[in-house]
């Protein structure tokens, strides 16, 4: 950083633009990446479960293996999200980080609860169909609701709309029931997230093009 060299107004404007871009690049949470990893996890994960369902499955993969792949995809998406957000918010304290931490705890408790629900249903002797229906419907509904809440909190309309869309897809999927609800979630939920990722990419391209 150089010192008190004289600045003319045009140089000041250029300096402000350059520094703003630098701060933006260092602190911006990239929706393309996040919606991308979650969209892929849902699309492949739910589709695999659907394709591996029943006595005469579409693919030669046990349902347990499909579930395991889905679990791994979700863990990958979670790690990518956590690392990305931690990097982009490193060194920032105050209101935004407090809000982010509170919002993060909401996700944590929601999914801790869903995990326990799955365990309880299993111990109660529920069929695979019941467990799958309950787990799929509750987890995707929570995602939809938390996206809506996040969109409202940070006034990000597209996140709110995606949340509402995921809630609607979940309602339709739940009415359809197992196993085809899994296909509805793959295409509607995963597809919806990927669509928003693409919209983000187009918006960014436009912003840069200006």
């Amino acid at each position, binding site marked *: *950083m150089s*010192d*008190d060299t004289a600045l003319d107004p045009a140089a000041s404007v250029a*300096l402000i633009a350059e520094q*703003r871009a630098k701060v933006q690049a260092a602190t911006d949470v990239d929706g393309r990446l996040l919606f991308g990893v979650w969209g892929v996890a849902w699309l492949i994960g739910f589709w695999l479960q659907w394709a591996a369902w029943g006595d005469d499955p579409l693919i030669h993969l046990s349902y347990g293996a499909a579930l395991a792949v889905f679990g791994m995809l979700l863990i990958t998406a979670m790690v990518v999200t956590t690392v990305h957000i931690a990097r982009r918010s490193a*060194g*920032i304290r105050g209101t*935004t980080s407090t809000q982010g931490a509170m919002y993060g705890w909401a996700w944590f408790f929601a999914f801790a609860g869903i995990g326990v629900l799955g365990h309880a249903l299993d111990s109660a002797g529920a069929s695979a169909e019941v467990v799958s229906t309950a787990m799929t419907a509750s987890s995707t509904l929570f995602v939809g609701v938390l996206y809506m809440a996040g969109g409202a909190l940070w006034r990000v309309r597209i996140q709110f709309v995606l949340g509402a869309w995921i809630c609607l897809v979940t309602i339709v999927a739940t009415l359809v029931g197992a196993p085809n609800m899994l296909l509805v979630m793959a295409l509607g939920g995963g597809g919806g997230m990927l669509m928003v990722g693409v919209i983000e990419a187009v918006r960014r391209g436009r912003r840069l093009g200006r």
Partner: protein
Amino acid sequence: MPESLDPVIHTVARLRIMTTLTALAEGDRLTFPKLQSLLDASAGNLSTHLRRLEDAGYVRVVKGHQGRVPSTQVEVTRAGRRAFEDYLAQLRALLTPPAEVAAAEPAAATAEPAEPAAATAEPADADTTEENR
């Protein structure tokens, strides 16, 4: 006319500091090392400029602890945000060709565009002393 730009902000180093801090949401602070990395500045150089901005009431430097590790955090004050906005308005006025200014506000014509901004800078100073108390 350029000398009417706020001399506290109008240097390469301090303009970059103010741009960085005002880019954050209200109520957000940056740790000293993060600010340093966003500016590619040496710690000594950054401290000097921060002191100048702090004396003017534009930034607040909070020394605290994160657990046992000492942590210094920097945020822009309300007076600082206002001063930066005034600075931006002055820049815009300086860069607008006089013909456009005349067309936009025929009454004011070519009268010093910096003057109204300088006038609004005064209440900001009053705020500063208030915040320092």
